[in-house]
């Protein structure tokens, strides 16, 4: 509750400013909505976000499918492939896309090789859509995979036994059954996409700019809080309308959006008559494919998913050569090679911010972990349902609101409280950003934990507190661990709030990266990405090794 206030208050104040700055009245809104450019910008924002969502779905679906149904190695590979981008700063990822989609980039080289004209993608909506969908991919895949996991294969088998070929069984049975996952993933992506600002700013040019960019530049460049707040409100209203519409349509709550659990599949989807007809038509087409025999291959979908996974991972690798660049420029391929940036990384200029970020992320993980878990327990297992609904909506708010707006809000509010340029301030702000993830992931875990264990404990004499400590906590530990990881990454990779709130005393790593990119074009940022990925790989390998060893140790004690 307290933490919800930390977030709600700044946002509320900001809302107030939209009607008070520069003078009292609706001037900002009339400027925003009366100006055809801004109206276009709003429409463009929606279109780009929708297109990115669609692309994320097209890429995410086969990947999610193999993450659930594929072999162990493929599953592991795909998980790594979609998590790895989280470990690279979004600024750097945008640069990777600039390289890939650029006029001399690999995509255009490929086109040239097959004799096609190069396509201008950078500084058009194409680049924004591509890289935004790359950014949104995990948000699409997580709910999709959760739905698929809860589905089982008996219905597809049934379809097959009834004479449906693989493609037809997929189109007529599997696909409609994953609709809840598709819906949840799409809304999440769409909502996140609408608030995007870094990607459109760096890759969109004037044709690809979005509302988020406008808000960002209005605040950063001209301090035009009035316009920014108005735009943010419009954005917020859009998001809210979409989310509410979604809830109406599917009966799903906002809480369920991010942390989809298996419950989706058990709810009976309503069939639209028109949808049914469309599916039948698609089914016919699929049937034709089946008769041709192209869909009989078991390997094809695996290869497809693996390829998509590799494509998702590819942009990561651009940073590796850059980290060995000889000159102080972010160019790919680098003009020459050296290890100087590795040397620079191990100086106070980088290690200090790294330490600050680790410290902040650590506290954020702990605080958000504890608060989010407690809140989830209260809402999922508590008795006060009305409070529960309110709390879950509040908890999800930061997820649905553009971070730039929140960041400005924090700045205004924290300045009053003397929290700007303190680690505490950043920790508090990050906690509100990380909380929705923890809350929804732990809620999902709790929801899928049968209450029978608590009842058993109670019948055996355990008080509520003991039940939570000795039964519930250990049993949802995996969810809490996942949630904590999310919380850690959210804080560790967060730049928007950090840029607003850091100052003389506190400088986080993303803020330092931002400096390096916007003021220096310093390849050390690539070193960080390589370093973080290497750390993650080491931790992962260590874990795998540990599992292996304990298995061996267990089987021959």
């Amino acid at each position, binding site marked *: 509750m307290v933490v919800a206030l930390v977030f709600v208050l700044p946002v509320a104040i900001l809302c107030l400013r939209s009607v008070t700055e520069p003078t009292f009245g609706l001037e900002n809104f009339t400027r925003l909505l009366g100006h055809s450019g801004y109206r276009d910008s709003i429409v463009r924002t929606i279109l780009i976000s929708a297109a990115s969502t669609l692309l994320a779905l097209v890429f995410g679906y086969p990947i999610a499918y193999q993450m659930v149904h594929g072999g162990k190695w493929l599953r592991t590979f795909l998980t790594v492939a979609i998590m790895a981008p989280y470990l690279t700063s979004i600024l750097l990822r945008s640069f990777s896309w600039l390289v890939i989609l650029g006029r001399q980039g690999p995509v255009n080289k490929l086109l040239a090789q097959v004799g096609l004209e190069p396509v201008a993608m950078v500084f058009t909506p194409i680049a924004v859509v591509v890289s935004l969908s790359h950014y949104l991919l995990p948000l699409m895949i997580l709910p999709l995979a959760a739905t698929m996991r809860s589905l089982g294969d008996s219905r597809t088998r049934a379809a097959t036994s009834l004479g449906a070929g693989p493609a037809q069984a997929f189109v007529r049975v599997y696909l409609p059954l994953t609709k809840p996952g598709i819906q949840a993933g799409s809304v999440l992506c769409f909502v996140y996409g609408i608030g995007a600002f870094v990607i459109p700013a760096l890759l969109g040019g004037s044709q690809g700019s979005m509302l988020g960019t406008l808000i960002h530049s209005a605040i950063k460049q001209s301090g035009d809080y009035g316009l920014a707040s108005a735009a943010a409100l419009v954005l917020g209203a859009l998001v809210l309308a979409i989310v509410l519409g979604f809830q109406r349509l599917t009966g799903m709550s906002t809480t369920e959006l991010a942390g989809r659990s298996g419950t989706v599949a058990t709810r009976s989807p309503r069939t639209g008559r028109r949808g049914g007809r469309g599916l039948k038509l698609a089914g016919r087409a699929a049937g034709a494919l089946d008769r041709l025999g192209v869909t009989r291959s078991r390997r094809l979908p695996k290869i497809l998913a693996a390829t998509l996974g590799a494509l998702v991972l590819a942009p990561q690798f651009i940073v590796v050569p850059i980290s060995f660049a000889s000159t102080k420029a972010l160019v790919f391929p680098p003009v020459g090679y050296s290890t100087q940036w590795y040397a620079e990384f191990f100086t106070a200029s980088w290690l200090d911010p790294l330490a600050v970020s680790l410290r902040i992320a650590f506290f954020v993980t702990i605080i958000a972990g504890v608060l989010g878990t407690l809140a989830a327990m209260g809402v999922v297992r508590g008795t006060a349902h009305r409070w529960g609904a309110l709390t879950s909506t509040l908890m999800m708010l930061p997820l649905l609101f553009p971070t730039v707006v929140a960041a400005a809000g924090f700045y205004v509010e924290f300045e009053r409280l003397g929290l700007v340029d303190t680690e505490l301030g950043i920790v508090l702000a990050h906690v509100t950003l990380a909380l929705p993830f923890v809350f929804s992931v732990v809620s999902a875990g709790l929801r899928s934990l049968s209450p029978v264990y608590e009842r058993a404990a109670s*019948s055996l*004499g355990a008080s509520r507190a003991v039940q939570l400590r000795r039964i519930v906590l250990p049993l949802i530990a995996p969810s809490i661990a996942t949630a904590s990881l999310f919380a850690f990454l959210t804080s560790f990779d967060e730049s928007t709030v950090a840029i607003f709130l850091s100052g003389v005393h506190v400088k986080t790593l993303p803020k330092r990266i931002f400096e390096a990119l916007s003021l220096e074009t310093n390849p050390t940022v690539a070193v960080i990405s390589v370093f973080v990925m290497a750390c993650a790989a080491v931790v992962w390998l260590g874990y795998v090794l540990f599992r292996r060893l304990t298995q061996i140790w267990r089987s021959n004690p």
Partner: protein
Amino acid sequence: MTRSQGAIHFDTVRKEYGDHVAVDDLTLTIEPGEFFTVLGPSGSGKTTTLMMLAGFTEPTSGAIRVDGVDIAHVPSDKRNIGVVFQDYALFPHMSVRDNLAFPLDMRKESRAVIAERVDRALTLVDMTAAADRLPDQLSGGQKQRIAVARAIVFDPAFLLMDEPLGALDRKLRQRLQVELRQLQQALKVTMVYVTHDQEEAMSMSDRVALMNHGRIEQMGTPRELYEQPRSAFVADFLGTNNMLAVRPEAPGRLSVENGGLLALDDGRIMPADASVAAVRPERIALTDVTAAPPAGFSHCTGKVTHRLYLGSHTMYTVHSETLGPVRVQMQHDDGEHPYRTGETVGMIWRTRDVNVFGSTAER
């Protein structure tokens, strides 16, 4: 191990879910040391009843008393009731031993006492060897035994079990039924047992309450329910029965839909709205057609239309012109019966084995 324990008394206990009445003004008393079974079809309110007793569900109205004391405000962790859940609910993150130690730990027993009592309980269910395994490493039957051990290790006043054998295969289930019953008798603990399996209810219980739509249709010993069903529902739910649609014809006489007459034994009072008569297949004997019925017996002929070989017995379906299809069960005392499909046979039964009810069976 004898326990001081009280009678459980449900006093017009009611539970509503919205409009839906799950348990409908239940009043019953369970005696100390009794093996009491709640039997009934799916959705009849069995689990709800049990959960109210355990304290996981609050009654909408009415009171549950133990030894005269209302337990409404006793939280479930203070009720001292051992519960065996349908899916066992063993704590998956604790070893068998830790699962068993849990309730003792909650009661702040010393380490030595805990060790001793856990060992005793493990011995009782013959699971000493598996003490250090995790629940996932146990088979279904073993899990069940641990669940029982955990429910008894802290000497609860009552044991509640919700279809604990539902998931097991028949053979295993029968063995565990015997074990559970023996355990309950050894411990002299009051057992409230929920099942939808009539055979299970009959083979284990001192008394059975047969529930339907949140109400108790009939309560009594298995024999009472089987032999003196008070409604067509009871007659049909327990065992197999030939249910005949009838109308009262004359005192002691019913006319059957198909045209025949059915005699009742002397002095049997028949409900005014008598509409269903029931005769158990095992109470009917097949005879040669020539045989004439002795006094107190009824008799009729028909054609064998179906024979169902069931191992220990055969279930014949005999089509009688007057009564319609009648099932007759004959045990294989010596492996063979002379009656074949198509053959015309006589059927003979005691008039006192005919039960009459006022309303039709509900399913």
